[in-house]
């Protein structure tokens, strides 16, 4: 196995350029609105060798996020995303580098003086760069012998390490959630890098004992980080971060709720963006400002009874991860007036953190971590998905359910009958798509689009 000793970050640098360009444009949201109008035809075309370079732009500016005010919010978020990438590539830095799994919430880590890298987000970064590097990295990892059934996010993480697109870690933090794939791939990453790794043991249930167990894990994590980083956790900094997290969650949770209105004043995009932003901006002032702005914009639309997309016709409830190798949402919005009113990834459902003492913070952080995207649903019994799903059906006036079944998520696929039953009982048409978030070898954009067209037509939705 190639044991990487140098870093070249070719793809990350391209992504950083794209992101900086986007941030620069977002300073002129009105002008950007015009550019977007000119580029609109690209948004509904299948991706080709030309427009794939604008993938990120089309995904964001091509969709309903293109309201100038929302684009401004995007600019705020990209400050942190850019800083994150700059930090990752800062080889001269003497700050320790901590790798942290993408489903972990990193408030505690941020209260140390470290650089951080989220291995799975390499795939997202490469999509931002308009490249097909995610597939290349997946192939690279598979050629090296990594199991094809692993989540493509995990494979890109290993591929990125093999391709010298990852910084050298000093320590790794992982967990036993949300799936076997992550649990397994971090053993691989640790083996390849040979650095100390801390694994949080995720409880199955949602009872006091389970929360307490995770809280104890967080105390162990703090001890591990203090020992291996030779630093003390800065509790004041953590308090500040938690206060920002509380505010951010408050805005995003309300945003999740606002799409109950018909027409919906918001959609999945700002929530997915904040999910992407977690790696860089969670608990930061910019992350909070982003949330505040998208919240205020949606509230304004709600007040004026304006929809997020031009003509809302189909309200979709979305299970699991989106496809990110092609801008599917703009196409759904433009072609069918289809908007995601609730989804399992972006939707925020959590509790506030009591910042009065270290003990209360760690206690509540344990809860907020366990209520995070993916973690909240995947780690426990079927009810963790289905009860929330039934509530969404009751409250969000959905016209259909889209089970975007990612190949990695075996635990979700094992519940498909139950999802189907819930839909049948509720009289909700459902589409089950066998897909892969990053790996377009598994299913092509055309095939996914064909399935949507057939589904909408056969159910009288289009």
């Amino acid at each position, binding site marked *: *196995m190639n044991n990487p000793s140098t870093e070249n970050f070719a793809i990350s640098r391209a992504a950083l350029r794209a992101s900086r360009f986007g941030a620069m444009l977002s300073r002129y949201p009105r002008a950007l609105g015009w550019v977007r109008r000119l580029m609109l035809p690209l948004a509904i075309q299948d991706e080709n060798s030309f427009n794939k370079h604008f993938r990120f732009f089309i995904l964001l500016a091509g969709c309903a996020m293109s309201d100038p005010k929302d684009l401004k919010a995007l600019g705020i978020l990209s400050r942190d995303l850019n800083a994150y990438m700059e930090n990752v590539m800062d080889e001269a830095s003497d700050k320790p580098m901590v790798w942290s799994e993408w489903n972990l919430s990193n408030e505690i880590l941020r209260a140390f003086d470290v650089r951080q890298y989220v291995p799975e987000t390499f795939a997202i970064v490469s999509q931002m760069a308009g490249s097909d590097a995610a597939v290349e990295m997946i192939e690279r990892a598979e050629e*090296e*012998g*990594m*199991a*094809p*059934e*692993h*989540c493509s996010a995990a494979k890109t993480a290993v591929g990125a390490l093999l391709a010298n697109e990852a910084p050298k870690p000093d320590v790794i933090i*992982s967990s*036993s959630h949300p*799936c*076997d*794939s992550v*649990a*397994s*791939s*971090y*053993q*691989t990453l*640790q*083996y390849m890098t040979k650095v100390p*790794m801390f*694994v*949080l*043991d*995720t*409880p*199955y*249930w949602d009872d006091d*004992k389970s929360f307490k*167990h995770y809280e*104890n*894990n967080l105390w*162990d994590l703090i001890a591990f980080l203090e020992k291996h980083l030779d630093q003390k956790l800065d509790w004041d900094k953590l308090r500040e971060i938690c206060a920002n997290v509380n505010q951010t969650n408050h805005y995003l949770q309300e945003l999740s709720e606002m799409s109950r209105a018909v027409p919906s004043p918001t959609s999945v995009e700002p929530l997915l963006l904040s999910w992407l932003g977690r790696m860089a901006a969670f608990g930061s002032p910019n992350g909070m400002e982003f949330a505040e702005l998208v919240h205020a914009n949606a509230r304004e639309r709600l007040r004026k009874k304006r929809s997020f997309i031009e003509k809302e016709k189909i309200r979709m409830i979305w299970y699991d991860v989106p496809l990110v190798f092609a801008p599917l949402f703009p196409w759904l919005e433009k072609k069918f007036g289809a908007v995601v009113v609730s989804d399992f990834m972006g939707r925020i459902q959590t509790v506030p953190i009591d910042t009065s003492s270290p003990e209360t913070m760690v206690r509540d952080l344990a809860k907020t971590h366990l209520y995070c995207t993916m973690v909240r649903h995947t780690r426990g*019994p*079927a009810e963790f998905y289905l009860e929330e799903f039934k509530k969404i059906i009751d409250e969000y006036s959905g016209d259909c359910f889209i089970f975007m*079944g990612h*190949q*990695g998520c*075996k*635990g979700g*696929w*094992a*519940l*498909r*009958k*139950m999802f189907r*039953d819930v839909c049948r009982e509720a009289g909700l048409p459902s589409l089950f798509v066998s897909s892969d978030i990053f790996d377009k070898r598994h299913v092509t954009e055309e095939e996914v689009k064909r399935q949507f067209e057939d589904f909408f037509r056969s159910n009288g939705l289009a």
Partner: protein
Amino acid sequence: MSDTLDIIKKLAEKDVNEYITQAADEGRKILGYMCSFVPEEIIHAAGMVPYRLRAVGSKETRLGDTYYSAINCSLVRHIFDKALNSEFAFLNGVVFMNGCDHARRMYDNWRNAFQTQGLGPEFLHMFVAPHTTSETSFQRFLDELRDFSDVLEKHFNAALTTEALQNSIAIYNQRRELLRGLNEMRKLPEPPIFGAEMLAVQSAMTSIPVENAVDLLEQLTIELQNRRIDGEGKLRIVLAGGAMEEIEHIQMIESCGAIAVADNLCTGGRRADVSVEEYGDPIAAVAKRYLYEVSCPRMIDEFDKRSASLEKIMKDYRTDALITEKLMFCDLWGGENFLLKQESKRLGFPMLSLEREMYGGGEGQMRTRVQAFFEMVRNRQS
């Protein structure tokens, strides 16, 4: 020839056996379970018979597939298919485990089938084991064992006393000691038993009451004293992997010119011979054995230990090569295979990875791969 081995092989081939039927007739409750982390001693101490669920005898997954998808593990689909076919109707309860994403979903699916189709039994319990071996995890596991004992006591109106648990530990240790004895014999240049036969022994022992298992193993130990397999020209191999119950698959491998003298399979010999301490707090002793000794890829912080243990097995049993066995879509063993491959390069032992669907055929192709692999190993040796 060994009469007892024949009896045991027949036991391994079927689900319901006379020992289980007899125990049920005597009023003992039978509790199915899914994974090696479920402590048999506690079930036994509550007066019940732990019974490991297997896919044996299953021909298809048609019903199982109404719940599971094609990218779920075939072992789980077969077992659940059998459940939906009422082939586990003799069970009084089932204990599930958060072993992997596929197996733990059976807890959900079985409950759904119970609610919607009346599929019994009523007692369906999720036993949760940590994925790490920290002190925090140990304390949590200890608590889980206590809760599990309470649940069994309450639901089955059983009295799970300390003394009962000590007795159960003792008898399970007896079974382990006998298995240890058999394993010792497998270290001989001419072992008394093929790997396929040993897998049958290990499988059968988890599907009959432990008292019968001890009797059979004692008898088998005597009968194997004078049995020897001619090891001349045969490679000595070790098997590692997840669930494996297809005896004929191991027979196929051995027929290519090898004896499987050791294994680290979920349903085979993985630490099956490691005893529980018989002093101190018995619950803590059970916790220690199960949390620290049954390591498999679901334990995230222990690969180094697993690798060292495999290295020791290879040395102790003087094996020539490793064959890993993985079911399709098993992420955990997919990851472990990758790491073992790296270890095989580092430590210089030959390794072959086989992948299959449980009872899914494809033997011809696999035979060719095994033959080519053995050829390579022999060439390397000469």
